[in-house]
């Protein structure tokens, strides 16, 4: 049970992690994800690893159906989160479902508005207009990612003026402000300098108590530092998955072994 949050305003989804069954994705004629079956455990960090182009981003983008913005995409199979089937939802259900699944992009991308409005945006689009409530939300989430003291005097400044690391933490806070249950991160630290990168990484570790986190990462070291659960993909297929300890120390598949040894990347 998450601790009492004074800014709580939306209903949370009851779930026990994400369950992916027989997921196939085609883009145009290309078969991008091939019969993917994975389990994402609740309140853990799951890292998706694998060589470039193996479909990590595609899988992640299916979890919040942002993949829908890609033209010519066909999805089949099931992605279950609590009572909801992410693949089968559409229209207003889908839009509502997206609120439960936050996304932290690879490159920091603050919305073209002030720091304050970036955090308040999510609440506003879901109908919260009360000024005091919004103030409380903005402060709460900026504090939760340690940005409050850095920006509290310039909340109305454009968010684009922040440094890359600050922007990325802002994006994280922006996702958190709509109270998701799941957080998706697609190489969210790769565009940052090493110190900012560590900071953001640590935030994810701190957040797993309250959120189910799925991370795509290119650096094996990062996966080894933060992962509780690992999914290794290769050419659109899930080759191996399991608790991080098992996959890293005792990989079952030859491909996984070679990837972990750095034979290819």
């Amino acid at each position, binding site marked *: 049970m998450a601790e009492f949050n004074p800014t709580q305003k939306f209903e949370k989804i009851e779930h026990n992690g994400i369950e992916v069954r027989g997921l196939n994705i085609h883009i145009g004629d290309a078969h991008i994800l091939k019969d993917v079956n994975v389990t994402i455990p609740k309140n853990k960090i799951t890292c998706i690893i694998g060589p470039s182009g193996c479909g990590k981003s595609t899988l992640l983008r299916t979890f*919040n159906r*942002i993949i829908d913005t890609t033209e010519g995409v066909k999805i089949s199979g099931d992605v279950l989160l609590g009572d909801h089937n992410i693949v089968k939802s559409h229209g207003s259900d889908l839009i509502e479902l997206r609120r439960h699944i936050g996304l932290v992009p690879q490159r920091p991308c603050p919305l073209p*508005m002030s720091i304050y409005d970036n955090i308040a945006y999510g609440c506003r689009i879901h109908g919260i207009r009360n000024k005091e409530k919004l103030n409380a939300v903005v402060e709460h989430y900026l504090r939760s990612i340690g940005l409050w003291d850095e920006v509290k005097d310039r909340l109305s400044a454009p968010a684009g003026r922040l440094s890359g690391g600050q922007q990325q933490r802002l994006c994280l806070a922006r*996702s958190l402000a709509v109270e998701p249950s799941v957080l998706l991160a697609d190489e969210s630290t790769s565009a940052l300098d090493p110190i900012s990168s560590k900071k953001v990484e640590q935030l994810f570790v701190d957040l797993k108590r309250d959120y189910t986190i799925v991370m795509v990462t290119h650096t094996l070291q990062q996966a080894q530092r933060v992962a509780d659960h690992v999914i290794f993909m290769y050419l659109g297929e899930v080759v191996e998955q399991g608790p991080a300890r098992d996959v890293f120390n005792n990989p079952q598949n030859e491909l996984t072994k070679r990837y972990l040894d750095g034979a290819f990347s």
Partner: protein
Amino acid sequence: MKYRIIKDKVAGGVMTLFTLLSLILLVAMAVGLWLKSADILEEHSMWNLLTASEWKPMRNQFGFLAFISGTFYVTGVATVIALPTSLLMAIFLTEYSRSTVRRYIYPLLDILASLPSVIFGVWGTLVIVPIVSDIIGPAVGTATSGYTLLSGAVVLSVMILPLLVSLFIEILGNVEIDLREASLALGATRWQTTKHVVLKKGLPGIIASTVLAISRALGETIAVLMVCGNLIIIPDSLLDACYPIPALIANNYGEMLSLPLYESALMFAAFILFFIVLVFNLGARLYLKTIKTE
């Protein structure tokens, strides 16, 4: 000195020269028009010329107000019609339509944008003028020939529409996909995303394009001249005729030789038009600067 360095210096010099030349051209045009207007300004005060609406060259009466207001009205109404329409079209094309739709519509827009204006004029006389005189006029209970401010504005708006849509598409298309996805991922609808993120990000570009289109509209001659009636009055309603400045110049240039001040008056008309476009552009630029630094 190495050859490539010399080449670099020469290229830089030539480019500077051409840039300066275009600037000089602009100044030369303004000065030329101003000097040619000197004769009429000697005899009539500027204030009188700009605020009087009597235009009787035979009796030495040169009031430009009807032409100035005709220019502003036609352009204003055309903008009011074209701006929202083109913005919605661009939003539909970039945010809502599939790429197959775009593949067919983009070339069409380019063709429309490059059609000579006389074709729009002919289309206006054949289609818009009869619609105004036979349908809109009777509907509001006004007898009208159809050659009206409204017809001019409609033709003009159709002319600048493809230009606006192309420019807007360019601008909205340049807004990063990441921004849209960031908004959608928070559970925003497409319309919320368009309104709060895409349009917000594109606003400076949208304003700049609108300025470009309005500048073109202010000077559009043939198409408007063919349908707007060309009566020297200050229009009271959309169904009155009007007479914008470019039409005045085009209709009368060459026939003014017998009257001493007539040529000078037409030059002054050109100067007014030049000045309007210039001030409008500079003003818009200043405004853009302030919203960009915000």
